[in-house]
């Protein structure tokens, strides 16, 4: 049967999703079906296709996967490789393209190309592995919904195939697949916590509203995409799908480029410092060499080699490997790191904002208290509640389940045998209570009723008060109200329990028998914190991470939960108060407040933005649609496996286990990652800075180059190779105790202090080689008659090459810890191995044929005692400078 298309008037009314939802909430079933041109039998295939063409698929994906070519280009193109590409191009022109025939030498270009290739390939492979893990996680989630279709009747289809106007069937456990208007329902309760943050399920009805509500969320006959059916069943009509839903509106707000995180800013700042340094120093080297030696071509070649040496081309690779290694460590702890740089942001984070429901709480109802009328704990109340919940045969709601789960031990288990059920009066939403009649082994019959406090007071004439059964006077009644109000004020959901012994009618009980009852107490329910929430918050605090709760739920319940997990609640700032604050007021308020309640998604995002503006590296942990904008604003977004898809898409890190202690482990791993990154940057930068001093001194005072360009590049390559193991290095425990952020200025000061330290021993090596070793081997002073000048220079170059390699590699061990290296703190075995191998390889090169090809000479035996003394003195001086540096700047790394 061909269906009527949606009328033009209806389309005009659909100008915004919210207006359409509000309008549909006031329409009756016939009018709604007419508006969408549907019947309960559902659309035919042709109409479905037409409507899908008009409204698109029911999808709200935020992020599209990056194409392969973009990933590849990002792995290879960064400021450092661009510098190397330019240098390689220049060298290609001078050494190969325009070189005289027979003088073509592509070796330097090849070395640079190999460096870029290794760095880029390693980075690409690491990122591809991480992306693949995240994709596997996403593919684990498949969702479908039940709809009516003309051809197939009631059928399951993928959620993305739903179109506006589809008849959708909901049952307990289903995810609401679109924004829907309820047409008919039975005991329908919807969990909207992912949208509103409110942990208690909301009852939905089918009746059209008499007057328009101010917002769709206020409408009792609408359900929203991303929420879930807690209990009951319903037949609904899809009013909005995909981007037109409330969920889709949030998704749209997340589109576009994400703000630069602390990591992005840090890497940019450091890259700028290092490149600026290189761009300043290289022309100086070129000019000094050119003016002193007069050989401008050689001066140029040497300056280019120095530029290559000063470019930390391995930095992107080291950074990526470090991050990937951290992500792999987290994967073993059942945590998926979707964005690699989130690892470092995790370690730098000093404020973690978290949603309440589902993140620090279990997002389920548990029985928190069972109290007598005066508010004292009373097992009798629980026993009566247990009998009521256990023996009722209707749909067990969340409270019944909570009572039964709570009473799992004796004497409750044996009560099942001690009592027999006589009858029951089922729950209905009009009475908001339910009763069972039970008989014990002695023949005593009891009518036990539990329900909403107001309803229970209406049917009770007595109360068990101060150990006696008294009439329910106004005084007692007001005390009951006060107690219930106090409990509600603590964020608890309160039910009352009443009983009546030997009720007069036996056999057929009805609602009329629920009268003259004796009120015996209350049951108080709560969405409790996860077992590990308190310990995780305590652990995070001990690592310098302040935890703040940002929730859409009410102030009272939030205060209660936060108190339970050990947060100092103090003042609770509500969304309405935040709206009245300008940014200046909010700037100080966010520093003084730990708990924020009744927040809308934009308010959450605003708080996170203000915290970041205050200089905090801010994380956000959430699981709902209402958390997604704040997660997008944060430096690092954390979610849980049970979160809605949009939250998982916005997340950088997804916890697959409920254990929140993994947060602490993530923070520590993030700091270890950062420590190893900054270790490489600082040691490379200081070592390069030291080399610059040495090269400048050599340019001015030596009559030849201290090292050939090809030797300089080889030295650089061996050093880089030894650094590949840095991501596997240990970090001292002291370093992991506080949040670590990028600080480009600390790199400059580190360079200025530690650079000249290594340079001192380069100069000492120059002196030893120029005035002791080379004259002895070459037959006299440089320039003197009878001296083998080429051997003199070759030996000098080799001596500095070997000393430079030893000192550069030793500096890794000197700088990696503020403690005494090898004694108080030692490197990891991989780093020990890689540095030892680099030293061994570099020391042997001069004794090989390859060494001779690149202009080296075997070093005489007397060189090595000198080398040992130089290195020993270097370590002593480095220890002194490290100590002074720490006294001035406190932190070494």
């Amino acid at each position, binding site marked *: 049967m061909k269906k009527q298309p949606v009328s033009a008037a209806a389309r005009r009314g659909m100008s915004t999703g919210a207006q359409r939802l509000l309008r549909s909430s006031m329409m009756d079933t016939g009018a709604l079906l007419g508006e969408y041109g549907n019947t309960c039998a559902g659309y035919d295939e042709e109409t479905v296709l037409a409507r899908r063409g008009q409204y698109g698929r029911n999808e709200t994906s935020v992020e599209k996967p990056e194409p392969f070519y973009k990933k590849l280009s990002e792995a290879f193109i960064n400021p450092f490789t661009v510098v190397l590409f330019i240098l390689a191009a220049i060298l290609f022109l001078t050494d190969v393209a325009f070189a005289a025939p027979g003088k073509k030498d592509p070796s330097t270009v090849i070395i640079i190309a190999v460096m870029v290739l290794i760095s880029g390939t390693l980075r690409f492979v690491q990122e591809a592995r991480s992306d693949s893990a995240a994709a596997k996680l996403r593919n684990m989630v498949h969702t479908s919904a039940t709809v009516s279709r003309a051809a197939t009747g009631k059928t399951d289809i993928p959620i993305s195939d739903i179109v506006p106007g589809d008849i959708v069937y909901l049952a307990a456990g289903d995810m609401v697949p679109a924004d829907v208007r309820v047409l008919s329902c039975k005991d329908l309760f919807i969990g909207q916590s992912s949208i509103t943050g409110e942990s208690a399920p909301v009852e939905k009805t089918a009746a059209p509203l008499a007057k328009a509500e101010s917002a769709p969320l206020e409408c009792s006959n609408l359900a929203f995409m991303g929420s879930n059916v807690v209990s009951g069943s319903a037949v609904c009509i899809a009013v909005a799908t995909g981007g037109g839903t409330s969920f889709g509106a949030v998704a749209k707000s997340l589109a576009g480029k994400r703000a630069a995180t602390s990591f992005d800013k840090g890497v940019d700042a450091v890259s700028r410092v290092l490149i600026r340094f290189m761009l300043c120093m290289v022309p100086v080297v070129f000019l000094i060499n050119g003016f002193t030696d007069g050989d401008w071509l050689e001066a140029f070649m040497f300056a280019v080699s120095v530029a290559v040496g000063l470019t930390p081309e391995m930095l992107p690779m080291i950074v990526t490997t470090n991050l990937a290694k951290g992500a792999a460590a987290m994967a073993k702890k059942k945590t998926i790191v979707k964005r690699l740089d989130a690892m470092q942001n995790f370690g730098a984070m000093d404020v973690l904002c978290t949603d309440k429901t589902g993140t620090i709480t279990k997002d389920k109802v548990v029985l928190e208290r069972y109290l007598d009328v005066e508010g004292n704990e009373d097992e009798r109340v629980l026993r009566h509640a247990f009998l009521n919940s256990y023996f009722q045969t209707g749909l067990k709601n969340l409270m019944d389940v909570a009572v039964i789960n709570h009473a799992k031990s004796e004497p409750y288990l044996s009560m099942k045998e001690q009592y027999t059920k006589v009858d029951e009066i089922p729950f209905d939403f009009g009475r908001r209570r339910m009763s069972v009649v039970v008989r014990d082994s002695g023949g005593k019959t009891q009518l036990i009723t539990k329900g909403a406090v107001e309803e229970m007071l209406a049917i009770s004439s007595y109360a068990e008060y101060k150990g006696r059964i008294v009439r329910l006077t106004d005084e007692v009644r007001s005390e009951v109200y006060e107690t219930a109000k106090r409990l509600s004020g603590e964020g608890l959901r309160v039910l009352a329990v009443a009983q009546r012994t030997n009720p007069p009618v036996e056999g057929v009980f009805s609602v009329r028998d629920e009268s003259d009852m004796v009120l015996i107490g209350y049951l108080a329910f709560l969405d409790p914190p996860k077992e590990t929430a308190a310990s995780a918050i305590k652990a995070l605090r001990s690592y310098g991470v302040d935890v703040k709760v940002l929730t859409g739920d009410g102030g009272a319940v939030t205060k209660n939960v936060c108190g339970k997990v050990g947060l100092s609640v103090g003042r609770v700032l509500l969304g309405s108060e935040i709206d009245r604050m300008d940014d200046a007021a909010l700037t100080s308020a966010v520093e003084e407040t730990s708990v924020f309640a009744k927040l809308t998604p934009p308010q959450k995002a605003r708080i996170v933005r203000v915290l970041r503006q205050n200089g905090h590296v801010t994380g956000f942990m959430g699981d709902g649609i209402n958390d997604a904008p704040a997660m997008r604003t944060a430096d690092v977004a954390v979610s849980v496996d049970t979160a809605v898809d949009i939250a998982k898409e916005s997340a950088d890190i997804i916890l697959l286990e409920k254990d929140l202690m993994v947060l602490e482990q993530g923070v520590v791993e993030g700091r270890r990652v950062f420590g190893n990154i900054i270790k490489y940057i600082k040691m490379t930068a200081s070592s390069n800075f030291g080399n610059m001093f040495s090269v400048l*001194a050599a340019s001015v*005072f*030596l009559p030849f180059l201290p090292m050939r360009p090809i030797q300089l590049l080889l030295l650089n390559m061996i050093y880089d190779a030894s650094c590949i193991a840095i991501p596997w290095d240990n970090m001292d425990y002291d370093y992991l105790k506080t949040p670590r952020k990028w600080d480009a200025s600390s790199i400059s000061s580190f360079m200025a202090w530690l650079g*000249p330290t290594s340079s*001192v021993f380069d*100069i000492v090596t120059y002196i030893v080689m120029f*005035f002791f070793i080379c004259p002895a081997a070459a037959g*006299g*002073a440089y320039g003197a008659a009878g001296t083998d000048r080429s051997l003199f220079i070759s030996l000098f170059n080799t001596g500095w090459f070997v000393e430079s390699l030893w000192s550069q590699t030793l500096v890794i061990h000197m700088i990696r810890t503020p403690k005494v290296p090898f004694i108080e703190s030692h490197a990891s075995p991989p780093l020990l191995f890689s540095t030892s191998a680099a030293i061994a390889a570099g020391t042997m090169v001069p004794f090989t044929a390859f060494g001779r090809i690149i202009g080296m000479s075997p070093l005489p035996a007397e060189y090595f005692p000198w080398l040992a003394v130089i290195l020993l003195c270097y370590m002593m001086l480095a220890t002194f400078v490290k100590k002074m540096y720490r*006294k001035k700047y406190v932190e070494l790394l």
Partner: protein
Amino acid sequence: MMVIGTNTFTAAGLFAVLAAMLLGLFSTYPAVKAGERGKSFLKWYIFSFFFFPVALAATVRRETGESGNASEK
């Protein structure tokens, strides 16, 4: 044995640079100590660089005096 030959400029230059660098590094000691006492690190560093013996003597005397006072207390 040290063989300089005609390379006096190289010898003088390298030794001078070495001395200046060592002085630059060791001058951090009086400057850091002064910084700990709330004095200007930079001023003391410059002072130490040019008058290292004086700055070192002043620092050592103060340090010895302070540790002596501390042990008397």
